[in-house]
């Protein structure tokens, strides 16, 4: 057995190894995503990564900063992954280009680069796209098992870069509203949760069809990150708790009009948001108590936007709104210094 002599100092893990592990943790969810929605997801991830690295290198050069250490710290790659995973699988290439470039250049580098951005870059890029190009951003695919059409990697890339679907296939045949969107629309038409879920094929037993797998595997990757101490448990627990409690209260109040908590936890970007997006170490709260408030705030806002807002999912807006509150929360939740009174 090997022993080492004192001092037994730990060195904090460098940024690059943390970011690399975040990407490892994303991989199971990404695989599920590709399995459900096809190769378009992979094309988006690869293209967003290239754009992110290129815009990071160019901005660093313009700012007169050392390029190599910042470019290979992996943070741009994580931003690219998170943004690409939020996009519709067949989003045209320029959507990915504009969103990623905005996230890196404006939301990250213009504020001073890694460690200085007050807003989550990936979500800032996503929101820019959502409010600028609502038509492209809400054109979601149906799970391949529902539409019955599976496109190869090359075919998917051709759709994204050329806008050309394989012959004999129309966009209507492969696209469908997301489960959260479908539910919202049908509830607005006066249906109950029960009839809506039975009438549309996009729902699964827990959440949206396929989405439950994606969310489940992101949950798994997230738990691994907590186990590896890459993130702490505070934000994910508080976020999912906020979402759960809100949906439980309203579900118990009227189960016909408000869907069950499990559906919320396993639909849309719930797990991706809880473990990977809201836990961004730069733009989230840093004090333990603050993390709980921050996470709960994101969860509650997400429920409010999903249920009564104009957009089907609300993770991005909630994260950005709570980002604004971070300095305030951090200020009031400073831990007591040992030996001092409050």
């Amino acid at each position, binding site marked *: 057995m090997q022993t080492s002599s004192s001092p037994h100092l730990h060195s904090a893990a460098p940024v690059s190894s943390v970011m690399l592990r975040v990407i490892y943790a994303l991989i199971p969810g990404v695989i599920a995503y590709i399995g459900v929605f096809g190769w378009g997801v992979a094309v988006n991830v690869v293209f967003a990564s290239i754009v992110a690295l290129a815009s990071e290198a160019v901005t660093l050069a313009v700012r007169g900063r050392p390029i190599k250490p910042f470019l290979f710290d992996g943070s741009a790659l994580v931003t690219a992954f998170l943004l690409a995973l939020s996009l519709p699988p067949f989003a045209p290439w320029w959507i990915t280009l504009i969103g990623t470039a905005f996230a890196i250049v*404006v939301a990250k580098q213009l504020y001073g680069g890694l460690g200085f951005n007050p807003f989550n870059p990936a979500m800032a890029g996503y929101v820019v796209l959502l*409010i600028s190009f609502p038509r492209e951003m809400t054109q979601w695919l149906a799970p391949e098992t529902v539409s019955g059409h599976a496109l190869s990697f090359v075919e998917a890339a051709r759709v994204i870069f050329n806008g050309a679907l394989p012959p004999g296939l129309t966009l209507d045949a492969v696209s469908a509203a997301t489960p959260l969107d479908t539910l919202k629309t049908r509830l607005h038409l006066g249906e109950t949760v029960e009839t809506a879920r039975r009438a549309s094929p996009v729902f699964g037993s827990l959440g949206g069809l396929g989405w439950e797998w994606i969310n489940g595997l992101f949950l798994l990757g997230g738990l691994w990150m907590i186990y590896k101490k890459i993130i702490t448990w505070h934000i994910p627990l508080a976020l999912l708790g906020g979402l759960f409690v809100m949906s439980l209260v309203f579900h118990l109040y009227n189960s016909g009009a408000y869907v069950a908590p499990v559906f919320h936890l396993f639909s849309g970007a719930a797990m991706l948001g809880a473990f990977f997006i809201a836990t961004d170490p730069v733009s989230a709260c840093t004090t333990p108590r603050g993390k709980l408030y921050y996470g709960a705030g994101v969860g509650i806002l997400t429920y409010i936007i999903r249920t009564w807002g104009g957009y089907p999912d609300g993770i991005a807006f909630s994260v950005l709104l709570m980002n604004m509150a971070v300095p305030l929360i951090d200020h009031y939740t400073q831990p007591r210094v040992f030996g001092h009174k409050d």
Partner: protein
Amino acid sequence: MNVTPYSKIAHDGLWANNPALVQILGLCPLLAISNSVVNAMGLGFATLLTLTLSNTIVSLIRNLVTPEIRLPVFVLVIACVVTAIELAMNAYLHELHNILGIFIPLIVTNCIIIARAEAFASKNTVGRACADGFMMGLGSTLALVLLGALRESLGHGTLLANAHLMFGEAAKNWTITLVEHYHGFLLAILPPGAFIGLGLLIAAKNVIDARIERRSAQTVALPHEAGAAA
């Protein structure tokens, strides 16, 4: 009292003390209206006219008004000027007036106007006060039009759309289409685009200023070069 030279008045208004880019005053109309070149021009010229007239009048009456009541008097003067301009725009540029809407009467509350009245016009002769109002207004208008051009070209892919609202029927074909079948970029037209665009303009001005300063520092540091050149 030291007299400000006209060249300094012009330089202050257009560049060194630009109301929009340096003093960052009157942001509300600036951000709300600058979504196209023509809208920006319409509001810019209205502001320019208000500033020139109010500065002139305030300077004319500066020795009659006692210090205790000067601010209400200034506000009254400004309100009268703005009301007159609004009525005139409603009469002669009716459609543009409808588009700019509430932001024309709101020029009264634009802080740049009372600021110039108080800080400059009430202490200077009529000629200089008038020039200051004109230059400040022009500086503000130029920044507005620049921001409008930025947002319109990014948002709609055009420039000078609806120019006939301001320049009459002859201007109907002035619209410059930069990109055919442009997809549109809604963010540039929405309020966030105004904030981002203004931030970029201010940053660009600071970069230019820093470059000028660096260049002048170099010439000061190397006097023998200046001597050799002479």
